[in-house]
């Protein structure tokens, strides 16, 4: 009995000290981490829609994307016209893919940016490369994904060997365009 008490007490003590340490580091780093996330989000918004002035977040609770598997994170309309939408598609090869889309006030894509993904390096992970983002510039909602041929009109060519990734990103982009249209119409621009 006494041995069990000693063992229990010592383990409790070790766990208590570790917990206290963790709590301390957490308190110290939590505000910095939140700041970092804010800063990188703002930087990404300016990257996909530069020189657009101030961003105001728009409420989009009544918006439902026409595609399944996509959640809209947030929509910000820009002072000088256009909008930035963050969206996540859960149908990537390795899970969620989060993107940010800068959209002009004519409903065309200015730039996209893949914010996070867990796709295969060398294949789906190529979706973070500028060559891939470039494919979406100037397109409007309803983009379709094609393979092995030249794109014409509102189409993009999938990454060779990473069709699922390409489709997931496109789904998110299409939903982002819909959300932007919704927000810009609601706000009266």
């Amino acid at each position, binding site marked *: 009995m006494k041995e069990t008490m*000693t*063992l229990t007490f*010592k*383990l409790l003590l*070790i*766990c208590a000290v*570790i*917990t206290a*340490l*963790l709590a301390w*580091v*957490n308190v*110290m*780093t939590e505000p*910095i*981490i939140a700041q*970092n996330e804010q800063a*990188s989000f703002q930087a990404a918004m300016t990257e996909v829609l530069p020189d657009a002035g101030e961003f105001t977040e728009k409420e989009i609770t009544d918006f439902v994307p026409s595609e399944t598997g996509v959640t809209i994170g947030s929509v910000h309309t820009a002072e000088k016209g256009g909008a930035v939408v963050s969206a996540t598609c859960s149908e990537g090869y390795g899970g969620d893919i989060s993107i940010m889309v800068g959209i002009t006030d004519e409903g065309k894509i200015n730039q996209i940016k893949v914010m*996070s993904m*867990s796709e*295969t*390096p*060398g*294949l789906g992970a190529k979706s973070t490369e500028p060559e891939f983002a470039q494919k979406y510039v100037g397109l409007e909602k309803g983009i379709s994904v094609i393979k092995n041929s030249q794109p014409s009109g509102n189409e993009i060519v999938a990454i060779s*060997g990473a069709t699922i990734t390409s489709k997931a990103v496109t789904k998110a982009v299409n939903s982002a365009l819909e959300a932007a249209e919704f927000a810009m119409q609601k706000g009266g621009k």
Partner: protein
Amino acid sequence: MKNSYMKTFLNGILTENPTFMLMLGMCPTLAVTTGVINAIGMGLSTTAVLICSNVVISLLRNFIPNKIRIASYVVIIAGFVTIVQMLLNAYAPALSGSLGIYIPLIVVNCIILGRAEAFASKNTPGISALDGLGMGLGFTLALTLIASVREILGAGSFAGISLFGEGFQPASVMILPPGAFLTLGILLAVINSITKAGKKAKEGSENA
């Protein structure tokens, strides 16, 4: 005295290299070696945790009762890894972004628990720290070697720098899981044959 410090340090890098000799930490080895940068990042993070956990466990070696030692080691190691993760998230978010899921995986990296049990619990903090450093660097070198092979053959680049021209068709399989097993297996075979040859030569010269 100095001799045994040096011996312990080199032990982790060569004689008892955790990846090629002790065969510990295989899961992260296979997963993280898709690129040289990731391999080095993971290796150095693991080294940091390994040194810290070895020192702490060595300091507590007389306090932790034998019957609850594994539970205690795991709590201490998990605590350290979580602290490293929070610090990285706050002060080096770019690195934390690319190491992503791998950081929590350090907790279950058998090298950490293995060295705590085999070395730190039976030695003083100073030399335990050296063992941690040696093992960690040995792990990092092993990871970098495997990642180099996989990245060069599988993506045609080294540390993100493209090596060959546009026309190079990389063997994508090297970047995928099968490539990890292939690379590790072949490297193990090569290292084993070198070690065996070395041993034979040593025995030969001792007998002669």
